[in-house]
């Protein structure tokens, strides 16, 4: 019974997110950008929140997905579903190639290595203007109508719903994964990798799997950005983007799956409003917000909500007694 209720509640939340199309018809371009970042943050949550791998260069995979979708479109592959899948696959393959090297490290060295990797790729992309477009990025391409019917347009209705559908699918996929024995093994590695080895777990193999999976989702997010904006900017590879996504995740709440989605939305809306207030000092507002959330309670916004709900329940219980 409570399971059915939870299912209905979840369906209601996703439907109300879809209803943004009707409620904020003028903000759909912005709303689509939020959805893309939410998916990016979700991909990092799987890696950082569950497996405990800190990556300061996750934009690498977001960028590969974004560029791969752009290159595909320029080469004439403009079917928006398969292009998205192929672009995400490219990011996953990149993770498969560098993962075995990277996952030898933990802690601070891992942060440094992922960070440096991000910087190197950004600089390389910046120099390789012939294939990346350099500062101009990639433009001048489009995608075929979705299912051959729904046309992309400046109103961004199709774009928003298309991105939201993928976020919804990715959310349920990750939910399923973290509830599986594999998901528990990831948490075991996060909690104590040495002991995992000594219960016979193939720790490196588990980590490589989740790394590839997370890169696939990050690449998917990048490709969604490309399909919905018909533009790729070099900034998809930027270190700022890698750092932003970590901030969104921490703000929303690590290892909760709702956290990255809420965090991305709050971050981008506050950023938007604060930048209107003062285009030079908006970072101050985000910083203050982050400080406040981290100070009030661990587990980000989601953690604070959960703590409040628990206090309510406890109060009701003691009242009943």
């Amino acid at each position, binding site marked *: 019974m409570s399971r059915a209720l939870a299912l209905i509640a979840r369906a209601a939340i996703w439907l109300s997110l879809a209803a943004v199309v009707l409620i904020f018809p003028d903000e759909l371009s912005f709303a689509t950008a939020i959805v893309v970042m939410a998916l990016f943050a979700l991909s990092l949550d799987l890696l950082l929140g569950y497996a405990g791998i800190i990556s300061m260069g996750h934009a690498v995979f977001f960028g590969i997905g974004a560029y791969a979708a752009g290159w595909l479109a320029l080469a004439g592959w403009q079917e928006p579903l398969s292009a998205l899948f192929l672009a995400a696959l490219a990011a996953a393959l990149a993770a498969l190639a560098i993962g075995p090297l990277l996952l030898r490290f933990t802690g601070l060295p891992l942060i440094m290595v992922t960070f440096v990797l991000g910087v190197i790729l950004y600089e390389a992309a910046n120099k390789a203007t012939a294939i990346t477009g350099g500062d101009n990025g990639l433009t001048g391409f489009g995608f075929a109508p979705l299912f051959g019917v729904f046309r992309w347009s400046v109103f961004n209705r199709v774009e928003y719903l298309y991105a939201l559908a993928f976020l919804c699918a990715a959310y349920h996929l990750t939910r*399923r*994964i973290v*509830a*599986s*024995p*594999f*998901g*528990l*093994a990831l*948490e*075991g590695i*996060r*909690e*104590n990798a*040495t*002991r*995992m*080895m*000594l*219960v*016979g*777990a*193939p720790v490196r193999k*588990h980590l490589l*799997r989740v790394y590839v999976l997370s890169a696939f989702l990050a690449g998917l997010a990048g490709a969604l950005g490309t399909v919905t904006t018909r533009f790729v900017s070099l900034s998809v590879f930027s270190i700022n983007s890698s750092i932003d996504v970590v901030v969104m995740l921490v703000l929303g709440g690590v290892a909760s799956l709702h956290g990255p989605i809420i965090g991305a939305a709050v971050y981008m809306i506050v950023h938007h409003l604060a930048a209107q207030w003062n285009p030079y000092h908006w970072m101050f507002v985000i910083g203050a917000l982050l400080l406040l959330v981290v100070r009030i309670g661990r587990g980000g916004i989601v953690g604070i909500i959960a703590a409040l709900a628990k206090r309510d329940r406890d109060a009701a219980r003691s009242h009943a007694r």
Partner: protein
Amino acid sequence: MSALLEIIGLQKSFGGLVVTDDIHLALEAGARHALIGPNGAGKTTLVGLLSGIIAPTSGQILLAGSDITRWTPQDRVKAGLVRTFQINSLFPGLTVQQNVLLALSEHLGASAQFWRPIGAQRALFDRARAVLDWVGLGAYTDRRVSDLPYGPQRLVEFAIALSLEPKVLLLDEPAAGVPAADAARLLAAIEQLPSDVAVLMIEHDMRLVRRFARSVTVLVGGSILVSGSPDEVMSDAEVHRVYLGRAGDAGGARHA
């Protein structure tokens, strides 16, 4: 009769410092062997060598006849050689049940499944319940390990090892710092192990050693001083001199 675990001329040195010196030891199936010795005798190093965390300088380790000296820790666990840690090595942010489920899911080969929810796997949960009841942790199932007192945490350490269905179980000071009630639970749980499991226990508490062990080895300065039945070993003059006597009281010597 071939031994289940056989250690042949095992040696480990760090530079010029020899911490394990030419150890020979054999455990038959069903052995209840205690390893005692003063601090710094190389007991924990020996467990590290056996579990594969430390590589030996020379010598051989045989498990049921196969040479496992160069095996990875994972492969040794899969072959039934399981250890516990002197200093708790648990999954503190997870519940007691999840700690055991983690081990069970690796042991039963379920950990690569990423689609079927663990909640739907009845068999895993039933076995977890059985293990927790075995060590007397049934009441703590859904508590976070980091919220438990030290005694029950020690029992979780033991429960993880039991979930792996060891053939050879290495217990590194399982009762160190544990209140008497929990130590008794631990001993009771060890007594319920299948009779063909070989157990090697490092322990300082002589009362515990007397209750548990059918044979004892005394390790001093990285090499074996004497091996034999508990009575033989504890009446050995040399043992008294270097080890038991130093603590003053042979009956209840207990180091931190």
